[in-house]
């Protein structure tokens, strides 16, 4: 993966600018006032402790799903099924949250999180094995499993795990299983620190350890590069790297779901809707498949997402506008030829060289 270069930053900002313009047009066209929307977007994202806390809360699962995405991409696999892992991870972490009644706080939270991660990882086992041992595209299988996950958790919340006779939901998790909320009137919880810790750990493992090197040796590009001849040639089993990468990716998706249930929602119910698994793909790309870049992109995305909720609440503009705009931004960032085309300008080339100087 190429490190951030000046031209990438330039394209991202130019994309942001153009995206804002498109937003302006889109909002005006549907009969709303763009400057009002912009104001609410800012207020909802950044103004006051509560909004900032909520922005950070929104960023929490995004950091994890973005890291889940980038790990799979960097081992050479295209995992699009993180949303599915998130659902099943949330369901089973919630189940563990009310099922184990005798554990202490720390143990209980740990057990719930580990179960969520294990289930999230297990969800990715089939696509990983299908890819490695039968050559079946993981892109399609993981996407299809997303649909299965939604129906599966909804079935479980309605059937076997249903506790409430009126609403299709599980029992509330016990207090011992809760991730603590810190600010009043905000769902911000200690899960945020877990997410940031995980991202930093991922950065360290990927770039500074032999294990990370072995994972990346067969991939490290945006395109699905598995199976890599290079890894097997060096004696690094690329099949194992690909499977481990997929499982870690799924586990982090499960962790994102577990934190949502343990830290914010506190029980699993049928209408609980996740799409952070998909947002994470966009954020991972925006963050150039680097964990630290993903933290930054997640914080940005979390803030405008929270701002989007505020806009939705205050005006007639629906919150989906945010995802629309981020995907438009992705159109710009992913346009490799456009980014490369910038190299022909001497100034940009010079700036690029200046910023890419390295110790090694």
């Amino acid at each position, binding site marked *: 993966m190429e490190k951030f270069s000046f031209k990438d930053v330039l394209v991202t900002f130019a994309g942001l600018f153009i995206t804002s313009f498109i937003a302006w047009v889109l909002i005006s066209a*549907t009969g*709303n006032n763009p400057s009002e929307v912009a104001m609410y977007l800012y207020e909802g994202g950044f103004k006051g402790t509560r909004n900032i806390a909520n922005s950070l809360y929104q960023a929490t699962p995004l950091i994890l799903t973005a890291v889940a995405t980038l790990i799979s991409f960097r081992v050479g696999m*295209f995992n*699009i099924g993180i949303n599915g892992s998130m659902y099943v991870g949330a369901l089973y972490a919630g189940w563990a949250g009310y099922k184990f009644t005798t554990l202490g706080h720390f143990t209980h939270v740990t057990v719930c999180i580990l179960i969520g991660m294990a289930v999230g990882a297990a969800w990715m086992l*089939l696509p990983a094995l*299908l890819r490695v*041992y*039968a*050559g*079946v*595209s993981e*892109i*399609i*299988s993981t*996407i*299809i*499993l*997303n*649909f*299965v996950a939604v*129906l*599966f958790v*909804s*079935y479980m919340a*309605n*059937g076997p795990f249903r506790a409430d006779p009126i609403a299709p939901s599980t029992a509330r998790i016990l207090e011992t299983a809760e991730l603590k909320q810190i600010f009043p009137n905000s769902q911000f919880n200690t899960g945020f620190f877990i997410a940031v810790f995980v991202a930093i750990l991922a950065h360290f493992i990927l770039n500074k350890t032999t294990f990370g090197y072995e994972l990346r040796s067969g991939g490290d590009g*945006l*395109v*699905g590069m598995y199976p890599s001849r290079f890894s097997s040639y060096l004696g690094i089993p690329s099949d194992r790297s690909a499977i481990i990468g997929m499982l870690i990716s799924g586990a982090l998706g499960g962790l994102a779901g577990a934190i949502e249930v343990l830290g914010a929602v506190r029980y699993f119910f049928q209408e609980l809707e996740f799409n952070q698994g*998909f947002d994470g*793909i*966009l954020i991972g*790309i925006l963050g150039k498949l680097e964990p630290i870049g993903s933290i930054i992109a997640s914080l940005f995305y979390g803030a405008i997402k929270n701002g989007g909720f505020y806009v939705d609440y205050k005006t*007639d*503009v*629906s919150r*989906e*506008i*945010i*995802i*629309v705009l981020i*995907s*438009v931004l*992705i*159109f710009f960032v*992913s*346009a*490799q*030829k*456009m980014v*490369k085309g910038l190299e022909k300008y001497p100034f940009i080339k010079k700036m690029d060289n200046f910023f890419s100087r390295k110790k090694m």
Partner: protein
Amino acid sequence: MEWIEIFDISIFRSLLRSTAPIAIVGMAAALCSAAGVLNIGLEGKMLNAAFAGVYASYTFESVWAGFTAGIIAGLLTAALFGLLSFTLGADEVLAGLAINIFSLAGTTYLMRTIFGQAGFFSDPRIVGFEPISISFLEGTFLQPFLSDFTYSIYLMFFIAISLHIMYYRTRLGTAIRATGENPEAAEDAGINTVRIKWLVTVFSGFLAGISGLFLSLENLTMFTEGMSAGKGYIGLVASSFGNNTPFGTFGASLFFGLGDAIGIRLQGVYELDSRLILMIPYALTVVVLILIGIRQRLRIRPVPISES
């Protein structure tokens, strides 16, 4: 209830209805894959067409306005995919994925903002397609099998046959297959592979548009958030199972359609949880993926040493 009673004429009709959207978008996927384009973005094209169809039909109270708008939406989304992938050098998978996310959020946004509705939008003003009755079949035993379907059922057969002829009997068809199998060979023969890729992409937008319109303007006349529900992806699997050929894809789609039709039927017969029934097409997809994998593994069979 006897098993045999599940299989009657109505399941045949329900089979064709379940097959049509998958088969049509599947053939779009087959065409793209045959030319070497991995088109993940079909899902988004379907969704945009479904929404545009409902919007125009509602606004002009005309099904043909809806049809036109739906096709245009499909084509425009396809053009966006082509622009990103072929002109601007974006990774095909990423471009397709971004388009799908964009389309899901975009149609939801527009529905909520324009109609002020969440979840689904339905209105008596939306005009849908009426079934076509074939007069000369009336009264014959073929009528229940072949008459009184909506457009896309007939279109499905027409598309399959014309695509088959196009594949194997026209220069365009050989050019498409050559582009997918060995682009250098195609280029060397003077075929502009980028143009071929654009062409199949745009045409896939047309087909995905028809498939999307089937969802929102035939049988039910309504738009639901994310109503394509993975049919674009299932179409990709169908085309892969059918070796990217029109008839092969059609056959694979029939398999999906059959699962769907039996599921719907079983729901009426046994008291099954609707979610489990809804899972059938996806579960079938996973099964088909496993079958594809087994087939790929079986293709390689080592020659015994003693034979040489």
